């Protein structure tokens, strides 16, 4: 059966009436791919533009509209050995891109101003030490003011706006003292300049903005990078559905499905949407939804959930309205409850800024009063007080935590962990109990052959090559064992039964025991089997959920990190017990409903524990939301992944341990950085109070402390080695 691909959903009209589409491209490995991909796509008739962004592996294609079939772009990529997955850029991602451009513009302006003002300031400092005339100094100061005021008005907006928002909401954040410091420094410098003073602080104010903007721009760039990768992965995962339209079957993206659509679900495919079975009988694996590994028989009239894996027969499905299914409704209700019950612990940066601002402002006020009492003039007292504000301006403090977050999320990224929430690092570091889901989390998301070494290798290879021609999920597991991925010629699949092919004049069969006539073969109890016969060769190949390859080591490593480990599964006790035994985890629960998992997490919370939940199933989503911090594998259900603080990639479980190690190291560095900032202030503030601070000292102190904090943050790069 040939099916057309309909991708018109992804085509976006632009201002000139042309259409465009974005695709995440898999398989881009080197610079030569750029030319190959763009060249091939541009050869298609009607294509106006094709540009591959190598940094985020995305292809942007523009065509003149009209009769062009966007499906041909995907086919062209396919023909060249790449996989293209169209997607609609998320609103959030576009907003972030706009914000990043704004920050970079501000950074550019602040950088320009800082350089030019420094040029003038250094002249003034050297002039003050030698023989500069008052007029020249005034000229230099006025020139600095001319640059600094517009630059600060432009480049300071991110801080001023954030500070204003915080004040309007009657709270405070780090941007409030920053804004006060910058504005006061500029105002004082202006007044001083008008009075022909020897010193002005234009350079300090602008340099402060420049340093802080650098930190913010880096933070943003890191977040965008992970966001882009996450977006690509989502596009890669998005399934296509086969929809009946008229008499033919058209492949459409899942996002285009509407309630009432009739779909064809072939064996070995995941059910693309919730629905009821209109015709066909099969077995479905619902482990992604309930954690249950035993398959469920379904018949016309039954309800199936999106994400279930269809095993034996082709099904016709009628899509029901989203949320119509009782299970999803229950999970969403639990999710709402969990989200509202979640008390957001105050983060380190907020705590620091809440202590910092009053202390600094009180110190400045006391300095002013103190100097007045000591008999200084109003002018001198105020200038000294403002100098205190400038020198304590939280350059180091404001960089202390974001700098570590940027470096740590980079380290996590390299360990295949993608952060969804920026503050997840701190929460990961605090976790003392880890709860694992079993199916798809501790075990691999799809079944694998077990006991391959007990089967004659040549027989296994034949069975594996034959299984390549089948779409059945158990056969896929066997096919993974194939050394050469070349299917036998003329292999025929009989849906629901097996595959047969003539090899060297003898028929080979793989499939059910009955299909292969191999009922007498020994099979292991509790496991699914694929049977294989070829002449007198015969084998029963056991297929089962297996642990992730490094699960045992990773669990041992987590235990060595002092974490309390548990398993909470929705699967039957007899399926959970062997896994718990193999991993040496004695606290486990089985046959748990989503509400039970939340209940157990709540109990642990009441004991004062901070729970890290690792899960993938739809049934885990509420538990992930209820936990202190959560991780899920990339194979997880979409709803579940949206709840997780971070997602890990690949077949290995190691990223979980890696994430904890990196987060703990980052947490230590954040603490150190805050202390560095405190020590810096303890040294600098008395000097400022004594009225000894000159703009030169302020500039040195500020850059010195910022540099120190940033260098210390870089130590978070050495993530996994600990």
């Amino acid at each position: 059966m040939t099916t057309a691909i309909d991708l018109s959903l992804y085509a976006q009209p632009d201002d000139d009436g042309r259409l465009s589409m974005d695709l995440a491209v898999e398989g881009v490995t080197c610079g030569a791919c750029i030319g190959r991909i763009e060249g091939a796509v541009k050869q298609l008739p009607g294509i106006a533009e094709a540009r591959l962004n190598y940094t985020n592996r995305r292809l942007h294609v523009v065509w003149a509209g009209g009769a062009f079939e966007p499906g041909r772009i995907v086919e062209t990529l396919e023909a060249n050995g790449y996989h293209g997955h169209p997607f609609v850029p998320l609103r959030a991602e576009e907003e972030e891109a706009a914000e990043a451009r704004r920050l970079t513009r501000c950074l550019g302006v602040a950088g320009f101003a800082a350089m030019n003002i420094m040029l003038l300031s250094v002249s003034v400092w050297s002039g003050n030490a030698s023989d500069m005339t008052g007029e020249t100094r005034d000229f230099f100061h006025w020139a600095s003011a001319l640059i600094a005021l517009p630059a600060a008005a432009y480049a300071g907006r991110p801080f001023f706006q954030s500070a204003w928002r915080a004040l309007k909401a009657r709270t405070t954040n780090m941007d409030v003292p920053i804004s006060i410091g910058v504005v006061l420094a500029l105002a004082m410098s202006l007044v001083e300049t008008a009075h022909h003073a020897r010193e002005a602080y234009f350079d300090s104010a602008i340099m402060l903005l420049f340093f802080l903007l650098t930190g913010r721009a880096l933070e943003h760039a890191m977040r965008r990078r992970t966001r882009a990768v996450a977006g690509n992965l989502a596009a890669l995962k998005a399934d296509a559905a086969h929809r009946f339209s008229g008499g033919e079957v058209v492949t459409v993206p899942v996002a285009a499905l509407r309630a009432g659509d009739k779909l064809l679900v072939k064996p070995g495919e995941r059910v693309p949407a919730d629905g009821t079975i209109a015709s066909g009988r099969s077995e479905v694996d619902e482990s992604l939804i309930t954690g249950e590994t035993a398959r469920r028989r379904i018949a016309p009239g039954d309800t199936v959930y999106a994400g279930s894996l269809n095993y034996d027969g082709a099904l016709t499905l009628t899509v029901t309205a989203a949320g119509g299914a009782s299970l999803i409704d229950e999970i969403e209700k639990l999710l709402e409850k969990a989200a509202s019950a979640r008390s957001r612990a105050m983060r380190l940066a907020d705590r620091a800024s809440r202590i910092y601002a009053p202390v600094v402002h009180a110190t400045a006020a006391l300095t002013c009063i103190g100097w007045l009492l000591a008999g200084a003039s109003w002018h001198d007292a105020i200038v000294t007080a403002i100098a205190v504000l400038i020198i304590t301006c939280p350059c180091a403090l404001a960089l202390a935590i974001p700098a570590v977050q940027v470096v740590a999320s980079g380290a996590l990224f390299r360990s295949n962990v993608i952060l969804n929430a920026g503050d997840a690092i701190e929460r990961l570091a605090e976790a003392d109990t880890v709860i694992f889901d079993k199916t798809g989390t501790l075990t691999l998301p799809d079944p694998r052959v077990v006991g391959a070494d007990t089967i004659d290798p040549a027989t296994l290879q034949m069975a594996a090559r034959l299984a390549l021609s089948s779409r059945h999920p158990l056969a896929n597991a066997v096919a993974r064992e194939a050394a050469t991925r070349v299917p036998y010629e003329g292999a025929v699949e009989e849906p629901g039964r097996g595959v047969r092919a003539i090899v060297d004049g003898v028929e080979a069969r793989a499939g059910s025991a009955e299909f292969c006539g191999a009922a007498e073969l020994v099979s292991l109890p509790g496991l699914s089997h694929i049977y294989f016969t070829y002449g007198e060769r015969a084998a029963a190949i056991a297929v089962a959920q297996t642990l992730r390859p490094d699960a045992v080591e990773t669990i041992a490593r987590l235990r060595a990190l002092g974490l309390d480990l548990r398993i909470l599964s929705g699967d039957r006790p007899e399926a959970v017990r062997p896994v718990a035994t193999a991993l040496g985890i004695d606290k486990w629960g089985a046959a748990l409903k989503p509400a039970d998992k939340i209940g157990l997490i709540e109990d642990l919370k009441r004991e004062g524990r901070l729970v890290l939940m690792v899960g993938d199933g739809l049934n885990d989503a509420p538990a992930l939301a209820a936990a202190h911090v959560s991780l899920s594998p990339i194979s997880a259900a979409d709803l579940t992944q949206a709840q997780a603080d971070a997602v890990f990639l690949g077949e290995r479980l190691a990223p979980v341990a890696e994430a904890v190690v990196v987060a703990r190291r980052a947490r230590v560095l954040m603490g150190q950085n805050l202390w560095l900032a405190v020590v810096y202030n303890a040294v600098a503030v008395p000097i400022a109070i004594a009225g000894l601070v000159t703009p030169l000292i302020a500039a040195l102190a500020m850059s010195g402390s910022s540099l120190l904090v940033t260098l210390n943050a870089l130590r978070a790069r050495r993530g996994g080695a600990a």
Partner: protein
Amino acid sequence: MNVLVYLVPLALGLGLAGLFGFLWALRSGQYSDVEGAALRILNDDDVENKG
């Protein structure tokens, strides 16, 4: 010191030229694919087509 009267504005003008250059590069999307730009320069297909 009269030389300062035009040297300082000149320095500022040069700085501003740099700033506008940067803003122009940013607006025309030259920072959107930093890794790709490094590789595209090695691609000489366009040269062959013309010559």
